[in-house]
């Protein structure tokens, strides 16, 4: 029965998607809605720029992480040396 449920969910999602797209069909010709569409287009560009910055921050963070790991390994080696000395 869970398979059948999954199947129904899958079909319902597709129907929902079509309804969604149908509602879009006429919206572009009404000036007010056209403005909203253009605003959404602009927002998408802005959000993509923010995500680009976020991606470079995360890349920098990953590099810092690697440096921290190297430092940690060398510290642990020093500790082993001091332990050996003792």
């Amino acid at each position, binding site marked *: 029965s869970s398979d059948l449920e999954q199947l129904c969910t899958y*079909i319902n999602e597709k129907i929902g998607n079509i309804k969604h797209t149908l509602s879009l069909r006429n919206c572009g010709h009404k000036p007010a809605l*056209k403005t909203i569409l253009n605003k959404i287009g602009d927002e998408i560009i802005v959000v993509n720029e923010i995500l680009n910055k976020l991606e470079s921050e995360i890349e920098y963070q990953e590099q810092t992480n690697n440096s921290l790991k190297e430092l940690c390994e060398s510290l642990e080696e020093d500790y082993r040396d001091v332990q050996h000395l003792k």
Partner: protein
Amino acid sequence: MEAEVDKLELMFQKADSDLDCILYRLEYEIKNSYPDSTGEKNPVTLLKELSAIKSRYQALHTRFESVTAGQKDTKSRICVTLTKTMTMMQELQKLTDLELSPWTEEEKTAEDQLK
């Protein structure tokens, strides 16, 4: 019974492909009614771009969480190891009566910060 199940399966497959076809034709019609010459994106393209940036944001969020968690773990390992090393150095100093050079201000500040 087997035949019934097969029949049902075929019906679902047909419904699935019919839905795909409807969606494709709908999107095609909308794209056609938006000549790209106007420079404006049609709603279908916007919808697809919206879902693309949502999944991109989710992916970056997951990546950020994992790198932050990793960093936290490494930092605490560094603090623990530094503390253990310094303690052992002091013990060694006592054992050997060795006079180590006094810490610079910078080193003292660094130790406080890490603590």
